[in-house]
């Protein structure tokens, strides 16, 4: 039951706008050196943090197309009438959204790191951090998508809801990038908590959407 839902979501995500967060991410990485100047040392020192902020903002872009279109078109009702649990639907959507968001973002971090003059070791830590953080970011985005589906200005409101919740990811993620001891473990812990909780939170939001 879960697999066809996941495949459908993945196909829809890849068909419409999966490249958008990646392009946005690279755009930020391109603009930043223009703004602060070409000082290689300054860029290398701030680059990791910039890429983390860019990842966070890129995660916001798909908020209005993860849940709202399915709620409007009756797809969620059809799934619920077949007795599929809301948590199951949310889990399928989470996996599909991460597949369309996480790996492309990690790939985009390669040219992004080159643009900001980030070295090999730091890049390795950034990629490791993103591998842990992107499922959590996907989970936050999905949950807030489900919470704001059907509201006007859902994308803007969604941003206001996601960003505060993503602060721990940003703090521990950026600290991981700077090689601070223990940060990786804390990042892994907070990411696991958010990722594991997301299907339940998003599932509850989907249930509330029906009333």
């Amino acid at each position: 039951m879960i697999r066809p839902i996941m495949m459908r979501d993945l196909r829809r995500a890849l068909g419409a706008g999966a490249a958008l967060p990646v392009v946005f991410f690279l755009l930020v990485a391109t603009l930043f050196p223009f703004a602060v100047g070409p000082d290689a040392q300054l860029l290398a020192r701030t680059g990791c943090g910039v890429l983390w902020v860019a990842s966070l903002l890129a995660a916001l872009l798909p908020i209005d197309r993860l849940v709202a279109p399915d709620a409007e078109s009756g797809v969620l009702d059809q799934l619920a009438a077949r007795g599929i649990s809301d948590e199951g639907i949310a889990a399928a959507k989470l996996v599909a959204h991460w597949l369309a968001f996480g790996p492309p973002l990690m790939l985009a971090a390669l040219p992004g790191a080159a643009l900001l003059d980030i070295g090999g070791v730091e890049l390795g830590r950034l990629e490791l951090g993103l591998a842990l953080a992107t499922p959590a970011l996907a989970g936050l985005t999905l949950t807030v998508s489900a919470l704001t589906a059907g509201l006007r200005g859902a994308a803007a409101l969604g941003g206001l809801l996601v960003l505060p919740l993503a602060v721990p990811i940003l703090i521990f993620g950026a600290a991981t990038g700077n090689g601070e001891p223990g940060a990786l473990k804390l990042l892994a812990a907070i990411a696991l908590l958010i990722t594991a909780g997301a299907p339940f939170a998003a599932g509850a939001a989907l249930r509330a959407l029906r009333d």
Partner: protein
Amino acid sequence: MTVGLRFEDAACLRGGRLLFEGVSFALAPGEAALVTGPNGVGKSSLLRMAAGLLKPAAGAIVAEGRIAWMGEAAALDAALPLGAALGFWARLEGADAAATAAAIDAMAISNLAPVPVRMLSTGQRKRAMIARAIASGAPIWLLDEPGNGLDTAALGLLADAIAAHRAAGGILLAATHQPLGLGETRTIALAPLPVDSLP
């Protein structure tokens, strides 16, 4: 497994307003019931309750058997060809390709299979939604305004499909304003409650 749909003293509360209360009926295999009443009386809500999409404010609803739900929204991916859009639901239910093809045939839309859903007319989309219910093989059909937007020929096909469904021991609960030509059916008439009725 026995098939049945039962409402026991169900009440519906929407937005703080009581739409109906004390609705009780039971449908056995082969039986069909039409929910009638003026606009806004709660016909669609009653069907959503039967599908498990809404919880009754009081009473209980027992549905034994799989449900085919047809609401107002098409729930077909607009960008996909009709055949692929229906194919998603068939895969989800594990329905075999032959059953889906037969259902598409039964609603006379097999020529539309390669056409993207967004190009279809209201009536063609409605036919596809009925075809999905047929293909599901579910014993309980819950159809909200199944006749809306259908032409005379399609209304005939719908009546035939429902007759075949009932002959196979299926249950039908439909909300409708127009006669569907179904032969013997029960009627669940909802009447508006006074506006100020509060729980």
